[in-house]
């Protein structure tokens, strides 16, 4: 059932690929603003890199949430989906689609930003880039899961847009802290597996609670 729903999500998204590209473009453009605003010097950029890339990723995830829910809610297909299957599986399929089409591309694009932000400055290999990607792999699914709860809650609300950001950003803080500090630890040549483990723990907790909460919220929004 979830697979069928997921296929539908991916098909709908493929027909609106430009909408999916915009958050990714936003991700790159926001990061590229920092050298202009702060300083183009490599050591400075390197120090800022973990925070800047993570904040940009977080905002891109928030921006892309809307299109996975809004149009389905407005044209009534969400209501039909909820009649067809359990709210939790609808929520899971949406979360998976959101991650596959936004989270995963962000992870794939992040080495490019790592280059822009001089993340490997002063070190021979490209190990910091790998750490950045790992932290995003573990962190972005949690962002999707929590974002799904917020988005489902605000679907029927009259003022939306920024409302979901206000609700969800305080909940994103722990992920931001550990996501960015994983990369910072790697830059300072310290062990970072503790931070990664905590990111993984957040992900597991979110997997347990978020699809259920999001499903309930979808039902309230529609019913």
């Amino acid at each position, binding site marked *: 059932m979830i697979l069928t729903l997921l296929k539908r999500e991916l098909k709908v998204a493929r027909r609106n690929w430009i909408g999916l590209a915009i958050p990714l473009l936003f991700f790159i453009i926001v990061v590229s603003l920092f050298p202009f605003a702060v300083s183009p010097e490599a050591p400075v950029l390197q120090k800022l890199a973990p925070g800047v890339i993570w904040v940009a990723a977080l905002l891109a995830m928030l921006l892309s949430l809307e299109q996975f829910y809004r149009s389905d809610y407005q044209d009534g297909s969400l209501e039909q989906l909820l009649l067809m299957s359990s709210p939790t599986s609808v929520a899971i399929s949406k979360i998976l689609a959101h991650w596959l089409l936004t989270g995963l591309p962000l992870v794939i694009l992040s080495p490019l930003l790592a280059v822009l932000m001089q993340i490997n400055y002063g070190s021979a290999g490209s190990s910091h880039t790998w750490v950045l990607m790992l932290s995003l792999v573990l962190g972005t699914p949690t962002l999707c899961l929590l974002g799904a709860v917020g988005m489902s809650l*605000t679907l029927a609300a009259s003022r939306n847009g920024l*409302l979901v950001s206000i609700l969800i950003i*305080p909940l994103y803080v*722990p992920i931001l802290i550990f996501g960015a500090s994983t990369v910072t630890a790697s830059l300072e040549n310290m062990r970072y597996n503790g931070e990664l483990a905590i990111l993984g723990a957040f992900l597991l907790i979110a997997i347990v*609670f978020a699809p259920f909460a999001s499903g309930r919220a979808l039902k309230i*929004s529609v019913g």
Partner: protein
Amino acid sequence: MANAWRWFHQLGSPKYLFQKTGQWLPWIWGATLILLAVGLYYSLWASPIEVRQGQGHTVRIMYVHVPAAALSMIAYIAMAIAATVGLVWKMKMAFAAVRSIAPVGAAMTFLALFTGSVWGKPTWGTWWEWDARMTSELLLLFLYLGYIALHASFSDRSKADKAGAILAIVGVINIPIIYLSVKWWNTLHQGYSVTEEGALDPAFQTPLFLMLGAMYLLFAALVIMRLRAEIILRNQKARWVTEWATGQSTERGDA
């Protein structure tokens, strides 16, 4: 046990709840004012000043700051409990309670942040420090404001209630996670370390406990007043509300 359950169910009736709280309210306000008067007397005049840390009179801020901070957290937990009751037993009055607690809790959070800031300037020499407790208090304020904003943006009140209840529960799961993360983040960044105070001198304890009691009662009184307003708002069309508001019976057959 059966009695307790019946009482619980009776609380779900708007009319019963409105009448009961109306009976309690004068007593709660009376106790609040007495405790507040005694507590303020002790904390502003009859307590020593702190000389060891060079704080002098600024230590008196503590008597407002500590109760406000305690209430800001307890209020959120109370919101989450009421939200759970509302979602599980489909009790509308529980949702009204969540909505009534939120602004008072937000005000307490703001008060805790504000007094903390005013206290921080003379003692630490700064208005703001990204200390674990302060940062999580700030995020708590955002959670309250998020709930209020979410509730306000629905035109359908029952949807607003349920959506808000889910947000309150999600928030309460997150509060310990936020607190611990911020704490670890702060130690990583070698932030300002607040000196751990030992046991408070008894001279400071008396006014603090008095003020704690007074502020808890004040909180209860304010929440109950909001709750009563909320009950009237939600039951405008009920006959007992019309009777209460106009002070007369609208029984048919009188004419």
